[in-house]
């Protein structure tokens, strides 16, 4: 039972072939590209959602920040769809692997920092010192701000991994407990209710993408504009 609990997070292989690449590429099938002037229902719905989200998300950026629109929208679509697909039974969620989340977080964060340094060097270096600090505190505060800057990509990656993994594990555990209790008592009803509620709340894993892209976006904003 213990080995079984973590076995669903192993990268899936079918007869020795790593099919994890197929599973990572699978959500792309679910977003067909619009071909015509008036598309079918699925594409129209997705187009409307993407436009809604992108307007919301890019409103606070200036011209330079809005060149990142494609990147941010594909990020939110990818993370949202992979998280939601991971809620199907027995499916593998790529975002539970820390390696993949680090691979998403570090390049994007580094891109924002380097953009800030290249185009507004003084302003981005000035971020290390908040306004109006007393003079004796300055060295310590610079160190603290540097640490908080470098911890940003780690926080982005670990936040996503930990949230999704913890949610999946909880569902496994509670489901197993329900099955074990089914023969004994009818407190099952209570536990299945907890499972249902947990699953619904976990379906706000989509909210987690919101968190991901939003923090990324806030970082981008701060680095480009001040």
């Amino acid at each position, binding site marked *: 039972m213990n080995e079984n609990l973590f*076995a*669903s997070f192993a990268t899936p292989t*079918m007869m020795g072939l790593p099919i994890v690449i197929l599973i990572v590429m699978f959500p792309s099938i679910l977003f*067909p590209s619009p071909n015509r002037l008036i598309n079918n*229902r*699925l594409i129209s719905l997705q187009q409307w959602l993407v436009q809604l989200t992108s307007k919301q998300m890019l409103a606070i950026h200036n011209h330079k920040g809005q060149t990142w629109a494609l990147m941010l929208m594909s990020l939110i679509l990818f993370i949202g769809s992979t998280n939601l*697909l991971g809620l199907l039974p027995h*499916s593998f969620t790529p975002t539970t692997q820390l390696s993949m989340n680090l691979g998403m977080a570090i390049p994007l964060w580094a891109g924002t920092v380097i953009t800030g340094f290249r185009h507004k060097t003084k302003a981005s270096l000035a971020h290390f010192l908040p306004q109006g600090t007393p003079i004796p505190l300055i060295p310590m505060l610079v160190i603290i701000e540097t640490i908080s800057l470098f911890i940003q990509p780690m926080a982005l990656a670990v936040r996503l991994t930990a949230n999704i993994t913890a949610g999946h594990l909880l569902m496994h555990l509670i489901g197993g407990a329900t*099955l074990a209790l089914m023969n004994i008592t009818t407190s099952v009803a209570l536990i299945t209710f907890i499972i249902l509620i947990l699953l619904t709340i976990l379906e706000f894993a989509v909210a987690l993408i919101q968190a991901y892209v939003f923090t990324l976006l806030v970082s981008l904003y701060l680095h480009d504009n001040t």
Partner: protein
Amino acid sequence: MASSLPVKEMKLMDVKLGELPSWILMRDFTPKAITGEIQRGYYRYYKYLYARALGKGGIAGISMVLAAYGLFNYYSYKELKHEQLCKYH
């Protein structure tokens, strides 16, 4: 089993059951042909998603895809034998 044409040029419905392995082996396996096959299958399937003229572009198409994905994941896990319901693990 007598067949009218050489096996290579027959469509799938005309191939007799015993000749099926040889029919499969006779198809082109060049990448260009394989992508052609995949595209043809794709377009035939996606009439379920793209049926705006029929007025039914609803939830059926994408739920078929998700169900197929769920079944695919179900059959690709070897640790299923641990998840059978038994009293002692």
